[in-house]
């Protein structure tokens, strides 16, 4: 008994250490109890997506705080055990094993890259621990990687690209060139766009793959200009996206064609500046500006602002809120943390926690949800966080997902 206490205290201090290092949030150590519901939370705190990861932690803290204030699970409170996955699947797997074997966590939520989520998922499903993934991937829906313990709160590329494609192809023309980062995220996006484009008879003039982590697109852009497309669809992530958009702007391409992207990252836009993103159209799972129309978003934003000095949550951050919240509400509804009871309870949820109505599809536990189509503004007027216009909403519909059969699940 004493042994376990020391270990858990050491761990707690560790958790607190991470939290303090990333102030302003802190964990309530005083109230720490043996019977807390523990949620492991591996995110890439170090490295290029550190800012994004910090926002994920913040949003997850909001969900924890709300759950605990509402009395927890019959008085049993929840806590978040944050770990740095370093954006490395090997490290993430090690951390996931540690969280399960050592900290005896009840649930796992987290990840910011497809590779990391698949690694964590592999660990959790082998050990029968529920994992809610909060970053994009089509692969995790497929039968080979899916397990009953796998949930996917984030959008997947098929949904995102489909929504953006349906909007863009109907408005800007049929001649399309794809510029895509050469890895699963990018290729899955292109597949999604092409799939959506069938209905519009789009003509693909070029499908150019660039290596991930490219810092210069100048050798690709003249060729794209020569192809004279109506739409240039840039499917890459993070810094790749920022540099591609910046350099496309420098080459004067925005005057020649419409640039679209499956996802416009809120933090990415802030890092790259307004000039690079101006006029680019893309999708997002969440943008704080939807609060004018959606009450749950308003409530979530207000709570977030209150806890973190007026900041607004980012897109990937808000996914962490949803991911943690659904599992905790599932546990609450099930009256237990036993995975076999929590799974059906989460499956049964019809929730509207932060972005309008959502539910998990039975066969692949993919969250069916809306996709917001946004356009990057020229220059924010008075609020520096006011960077996007919402120009359309792709309402939640199972029809926008790949069918269960296509994913290899039995119908």
């Amino acid at each position: 008994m004493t042994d376990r206490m020391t270990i858990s205290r050491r761990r707690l201090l560790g958790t607190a250490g991470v939290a303090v290092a990333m102030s302003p949030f802190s964990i309530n150590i005083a109230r720490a109890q043996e019977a807390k519901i523990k949620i492991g939370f591996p995110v890439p705190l170090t490295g290029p997506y550190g800012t994004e990861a910090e926002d994920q932690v913040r949003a997850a803290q909001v969900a924890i705080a709300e759950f605990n204030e509402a009395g927890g699970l019959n008085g049993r409170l929840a806590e978040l055990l944050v770990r740095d996955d370093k954006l490395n699947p090997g490290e993430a797997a090690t951390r996931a094993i540690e969280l399960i074997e050592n900290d005896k966590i009840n649930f796992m939520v987290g990840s910011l890259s497809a590779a990391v989520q698949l690694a964590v998922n592999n660990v959790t499903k082998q050990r029968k621990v529920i994992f809610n993934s909060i970053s994009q991937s089509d692969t995790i829906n497929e039968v080979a990687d899916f397990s009953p313990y796998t949930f996917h709160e984030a959008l997947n590329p098929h949904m995102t690209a489909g929504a953006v494609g349906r909007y863009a192809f109907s408005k800007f023309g049929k001649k399309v060139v794809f510029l895509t980062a050469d890895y699963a995220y990018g290729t899955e996006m292109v597949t999604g766009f092409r799939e959506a484009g069938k209905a519009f008879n789009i003509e693909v003039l070029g499908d150019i793959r660039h290596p991930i982590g490219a810092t210069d697109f100048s050798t690709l852009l003249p060729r794209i200009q020569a192809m004279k497309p109506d739409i240039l669809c840039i499917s890459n992530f993070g810094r790749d996206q920022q540099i591609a958009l910046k350099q496309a702007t420098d080459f004067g391409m925005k005057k020649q064609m419409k640039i679209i992207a499956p996802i416009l990252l809120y933090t990415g836009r802030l890092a790259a500046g307004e000039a690079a993103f101006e006029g680019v159209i893309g999708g997002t799972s969440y943008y704080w500006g939807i609060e004018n129309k959606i009450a749950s978003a308003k409530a979530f934003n207000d709570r977030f602002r209150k806890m973190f000095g007026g900041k607004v949550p980012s897109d990937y951050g808000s996914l962490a809120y949803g991911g943690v919240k659904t599992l905790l509400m599932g546990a609450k509804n099930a009256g237990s943390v036993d995975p076999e009871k929590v799974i059906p309870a989460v499956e049964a949820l019809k929730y509207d926690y932060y972005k309008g109505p959502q539910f998990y599809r039975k066969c692949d536990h993919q969250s069916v949800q809306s996709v917001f189509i946004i356009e990057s503004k020229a220059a924010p007027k008075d609020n520096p966080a006011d960077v996007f216009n919402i120009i359309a909403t792709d309402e939640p519909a199972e029809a926008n997902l790949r069918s269960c059969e296509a994913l290899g699940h039995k119908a």
Partner: protein
Amino acid sequence: MTYTVEKAAMTRLPKDGLMDMAYRHRVLLSAVFLLVFPLLVPFKALAVNILIYGLYALGFNLLFGYLGLLSFGHSALFGAGSYACGILLVHYGMPWWAGLLLGTVAGGAMAGIIGMFAIRTSGIYFAMVTLALSQCVYYIFYQATGLTGGENGLRGVNVSDISIFGLHLYFVDPVTRYYVVAACVILALFFLSRILASPFGAVIEATRENEARARASGYDVRRVRLVTFILSGGFCGLAGALQAIHLSIVPIETMHYETSGLVVMMALLGGMGTFFGPFIGAAVFLLLENVVSLWTVHWQLFVGAVFVLCVLFFPRGIWGSVLHWVKK
């Protein structure tokens, strides 16, 4: 360059009973130590990682510490073992032991392929050629998504039940996993110990000490290098294969050049050209990283500082310094 503090210490002190005995029974000693080692580490998965990276550093050390060739391409050897094991288990349904065995072979084979090209060069050029070739290997594995899973990594290298001579073990259990890996590592230590004490071990030392003299004495230095590189690849391949079944995934990062840099760091920290140095380096590095990264997100500052201080003030590394001190 010379790192043979350990051996020199031994030849200097042949009569020193305790040291001599410790030296002769070093494999047995390490086996005893590894038995209790998990109790000293915060969690088992970390202990397993230390064993795996220690083994990886051991393989690297054979080439760098004992032969004197600095490779910046060892990630390709580690990765080859990892992917071979993973692919055989996932796509061909082979048993775990076959994965480990063929992972070892794959590490050696990859070393053979890279070595055939790289062995013609030496010094900094050898480091650069191995770096370039390992990057090529990285991109090949990256592109071969059908087999390797590409950037998503290879998932599903799941080993749950294993049986050894009628003994049934549940591999997912952390304690079992640790001791299975530890057994493999002790086996590898035994092999390394035999190699170092063998006639070929003497050739390796001689080649490092003085290449021209070794050649004049009648040794085919290029082949000595190639064979040592292949042996090094075998150890690294086994380490990679163990990692695959430990994590049950093979991330593409395994092949990345940062994985090569990591092993240089560990070997340097522990003490190059010493028997236990690589394990001590791996243990200290991973424990520090674990502790510091719980304490601050800026753990890389710490890693960099340890590295710089080590180069400046402890070029012999931790274990090398200890042995040097004992020798005095």
